[in-house]
């Protein structure tokens, strides 16, 4: 879409874009380019020379079992938390859309968790899921040793998944509800007149019509699970126990800033960037074509 009426002065037009361009050059393009450069060289932290090593950094990372462990953990985390957050949100939004009494209340309250900072909610869940105090302790009293995120990797993974999903149910709920409410009521009513029940209307009318939203949220949830998980992991598990929750962004942080391995961290950043770019392109290219639009 283009404007028919525009202003003729080129200089003023370009001047308006300059602040943004300066910012993204300094804080986006330069660092991104720097990351590529570092990933191809061996850099001594805080100065010193850079030695060109080609793809060696990538080779050593990809040969590292810890890195594959981190990728697996990230994928498990992304898969389960996205599935959980989206499924729960879809059910809640579909039911809220039936507009029974009290649905206004749910609409207001269910999005509160999304406003909370990841580290703050991580702290809350660290307490709720603590093995010695809190509520899981009750279960631990009945079956001693049933739950301990500090020792058991699976329990730790479950904890961060619960915390992340809790936040993103609210987010997904908003989008699902907006999508449901954009479906004309007359469609639903016509189907009801033809004798279709609630489930049939859901599967044959509402579900196909909200598929664009589902795919959109799928990509957003997966990319967010790569980024927004950092605060949750850092507060709840610090990547442990035994690297069970050492997700990719957390590993970049700990390798780069704790281990001072800039080149390794840069190479990991590049791999993560590629992953996210592929996901985004996938969203734009393929997903948008295969779904039903009205």
């Amino acid at each position, binding site marked *: 879409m283009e404007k028919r009426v525009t202003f003729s*002065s*080129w200089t003023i037009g370009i001047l308006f874009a300059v602040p943004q361009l300066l910012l993204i050059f*300094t804080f986006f393009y330069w660092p991104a380019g720097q990351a590529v450069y570092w990933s191809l060289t061996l850099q001594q932290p805080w100065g010193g020379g850079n030695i060109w090593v080609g793809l060696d950094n990538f080779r050593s990372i990809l040969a590292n079992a810890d890195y594959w462990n981190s990728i697996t953990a990230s994928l498990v985390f992304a898969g389960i938390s996205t599935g959980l957050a989206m499924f*729960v949100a879809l059910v809640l939004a579909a039911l809220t859309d039936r507009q029974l009494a009290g649905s206004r209340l749910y609409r207001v309250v*269910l999005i509160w968790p999304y406003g909370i900072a990841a580290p703050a909610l991580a702290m809350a869940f660290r307490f709720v899921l603590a093995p010695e105090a809190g509520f899981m302790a009750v279960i631990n009293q009945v079956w001693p040793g049933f739950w301990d995120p500090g020792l058991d990797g699976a329990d730790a993974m479950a904890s961060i998944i619960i915390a992340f999903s809790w936040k993103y149910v609210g987010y997904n709920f908003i*989008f699902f509800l907006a999508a449901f409410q954009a479906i004309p009521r007359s469609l639903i009513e016509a189907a009801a007149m033809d004798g279709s029940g609630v489930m049939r209307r859901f599967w044959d009318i509402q579900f196909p019509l909200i598929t664009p939203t589902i795919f959109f949220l799928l990509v957003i949830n997966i990319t967010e699970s790569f980024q927004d998980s950092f605060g949750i992991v850092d507060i709840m598990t610090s990547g442990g126990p035994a690297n069970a929750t050492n997700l990719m962004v957390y590993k970049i942080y700990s390798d780069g800033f704790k281990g001072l391995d800039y080149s390794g*961290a840069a190479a990991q950043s590049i791999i993560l960037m590629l992953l996210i770019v592929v996901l985004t392109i996938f969203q734009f290219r393929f997903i948008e074509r295969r779904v039903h639009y009205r």
Partner: protein
Amino acid sequence: MVERTPFLNFFTHLILFVGFVLCIAPFVVVAVAASHNLRDVNDVPMSLLPGSDFWTNIKTAWTTADLGPKLLNSFIMAAGVAAGKVIISALTAFSIVYFRYPGRTFIFWLIFVTLMLPLEVRIVPTYAVVANVLSPYQTILDITGLSWLIEKVSGVQVSLSLGLLNSYTGLILPLIATATGTFLYRQFFLTVPDELTEAARMDGAGALRFFIDILLPLSRNNMAALGTIMFLWAWNQYLWPLLITTDQSHATAVTELKQLIPNVGGIPEWNIAMAGTLIVMLPPLIVVVLMQRWFVRGLIATEK
């Protein structure tokens, strides 16, 4: 409602109520735990009736994590990011939509690409840039031979250096350098009728006047939505402030939470930790509750 479905209605209410409880429960647990004394909070199971130590715990958490100045830092950062976004995105969108200069499409794509890579995945090099924000320009001068030329001609050795670690500018600027708001404004500007622009031009208004007196007042709703969402987003940032505030004086409330994690030895002071958590989660929650309309609108609009 289309038909009578008593069973389904019952289940609808049941499931929604369970969802409601699960959504509220962590808030309630945090608030209740913050009101217990050390012994009660470690009781198994913890009593859900509020204790009497609420204010003592809040005070302890406040002083332990030094939350007063930290909340102020958080506020300055969040307000700075929100204001910066609202202004800079408006300027850029105006330039992209209302002008026809060569390279406009290129600039559009330059900005669009920034949507793809969040700050988290390029933290290490961004950190290096913020440590000396002029280093990109220094390198460019060095590589192009300009610094050599300047040194030959004027005898001045060029070494640009400006560190932004532990400063509000360093906290705020990198968080503004994305395209999120630009497209929100762009979509809106495209819906502003051309007749309005024509009329303004006929009355002798230039680009600047049109922007300030007509376009900006029309975008007030967008500004509120974008401002709300950006304020929350910036308030909740964790990784970035954690990295660049090596000095306590510029740390934010969210990063200070880590100070309150109970250590493993001894009886964990969960009541203090929860009091601190409550203080940190309250401001964004208040913003969400009061600005709900703008929040939802901003959320849906910025992502599309």
